[in-house]
């Protein structure tokens, strides 16, 4: 080591030192940042979970006036085979006083924008209030679904008519893959 004083005397030494420190610090910061990402990303849904994000449903076994609940992404989905009465009730109420106005035809649209079939209603089975599963019972004044938790009442198109729920039941993204088969998701 040479004498410290002579080095100090160099005017540009402090600039050079600062540059090295800043460069080292910035590069290290980039490294830390890049290292953190895998540790965050690992908590996202894994590849096997993502691959289960579609569900195929065979409609041939669902009788007229019946509905089945299928699981999609770990959540229940209603697949309802609507009767002519239910369909006409739903279409009649398109112009009723709705909290969340939407026509029945709009609610039947498939994932790719093609019109659906009026007899098949595909809805996410969680109440838009706090997530309970509504039931299709006579308790509904509108002939549709009724949520037992806080009394939200949905019509045969799954539109909210009465109660605390803010929105209509969400339509699950679905596609007809055959005459009696749909794919959800």
């Amino acid at each position: 080591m040479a004498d410290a004083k002579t080095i100090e005397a160099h005017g540009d030494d402090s600039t050079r030192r600062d540059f090295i420190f800043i460069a080292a610090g910035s590069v290290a910061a980039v490294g830390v940042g890049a290292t953190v990402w895998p540790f965050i990303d690992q908590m996202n849904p894994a590849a096997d979970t993502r691959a289960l994000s579609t569900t195929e449903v065979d409609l041939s076994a669902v009788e007229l006036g019946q509905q089945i609940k299928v699981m999609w992404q770990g959540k229940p989905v209603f697949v309802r085979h609507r009767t002519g009465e239910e369909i006409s009730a739903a279409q009649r109420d398109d112009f009723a006083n709705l909290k969340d106005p939407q026509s029945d035809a709009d609610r039947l649209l498939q994932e790719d924008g093609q019109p659906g079939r009026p007899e098949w209603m595909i809805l996410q089975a969680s109440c838009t209030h706090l997530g309970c599963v509504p039931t299709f019972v006579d308790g509904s004044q509108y002939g549709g679904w009724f949520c037992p938790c806080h009394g939200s009442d949905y019509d045969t198109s799954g539109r909210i008519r009465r109660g605390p729920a803010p929105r209509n039941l969400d339509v699950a993204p679905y596609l007809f893959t055959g005459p009696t088969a749909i794919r959800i998701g």
Partner: protein
Amino acid sequence: MSGPSTYEPKSGFTRWLDKRLPIIRLGYDSFVAYPTPRNLNYWWTFGAMLSMCLVVQIVTGVVLAMHYVPHIDMAFASVQRLERDVPYGWLIQNIHAVGASMFFLAVYIHMFRGLYYGSYKAPRELLWILGCVIYVLMVATGFLGYTLPWGQMSFWGATVITNLLGALPIVGESIKNWLSGGFSIDQPTINRFFSLHYLLPFVIAGVVALHVWALHEAGQGNPTGVDVRKASDIPAGEPGDTVPFTPHATMKDLFAAVLFVILFATFVFFMPDALGHADNFIPANPLQTPPEIVPEWYLLPFYAILRAIDFNIGPIDSKLGGVLAMFAAIGVLFVLPWLDTSRIRSMRYRPIARQFFLIFVVVCVILGWCGGQNPGKILVPATFSATLEWVEGGTVTQSPVRAEGEAQWAQAAADAQASQSGAAMTAVTRTSATEGTLRAINGGAVQTRTVTGGTVDELEAAVTEAKAAVGQAAPFFNVTRNTPFTFTVTTLSQIATFYYFFFFLVLLPLLGLRETPGRVPDTIAKPVTKQAQGAA
């Protein structure tokens, strides 16, 4: 801490905080102003790397625990899913697995550094013992963690190690069953091993805090082993013996840590399985033991010591003897501060001890190598020989041999052969526990031939060949086999194990009293100034 605190809070908030929770003061005194000997070399950077390793293992381990399933039917598959499907799971799993090896690599360097520079001597005995406690906890954690992937090595490693405890007299079996929660390694074992594997690193972190506390109380040692002088003892105009920890030690530690991470990353990205064992990619199978069971590389020296004891020592059978020797090999480290009688800390100034220390390092490496080898492997070529004896010509007579009981057979056979004292050659063939046939040849010429081989197999082949060559010329053969002393891996382990204990229990106590040390500088600055002058 050494000396009064020099921290002065600058802002209003830090002044407010300092009166209530002086945490910044603690950090400042411990890791900024803390006086560090200026002559530390790179061997002193491994403490920082070990802290880094602990943090890396805890962080990656917590992540792995989010995906791992401690169930005998699902553990293996959950690790596979983690590596295949979880985003960056392959990376994090590799870091954790390689990290264990890196952790042990660093801890061994750290320990050898402590040994060489006498870091265990007063006033740092407790600091050393706390380090030994950390090491034992690391071994336990490593063992528990290796069980979790539930491969063949996991399962059989756990079986073998828990059986070690079964070697203890009287209580062994109960302890073994208590530990595994059943009569074999099974579901209860994997569940509790997972729980403990998660717990122990935090215990390690706690002991590390004590270790660092003890370090900061005694102050760091240094390569000369000479105590640093107090600031008041330094003559005016001379630089002190110490520099502030930050930035001096911090920067050096960071630089060394980056080099260490380069090695780490090379393994993680280019040979993640090089330090593991292929058999651990086979799911655990309690019905079939792999052809060879070896622990992870960092436990091989102790495994060699365990296997070196293949003889009974008085009432202690070889199994218990091996277990005791293995635990003693770690236990002896705890009493090291009182075994080494030398007043000189650093082996720099102990010319004889330094030679023995270097041999000790080599011996540890040899033990590690032995631990990974087949114990019966012959290391020094040996010559197995056998002498065939047969008679050409002569007449053969046969007579039955009978003994009173099985115990008397040997005597009866010997008596029968002795009775044919005039015969050229006799042989007894045993046909049952108490019966046999005596054959004797009278007349004829006795022939001999000696054959040799490098192994037992080669010798037997040579014997068979010789018999075939002689063929019908002889009615029967007498074969005297000469087994030479063979120098095997076990022999080498025994010598190395002997030296391991000899070093601690005999050399260090005696050398300290007998050795004439070299000239120790008065201050750490002495060699420093000399070096500086030489460089100028």
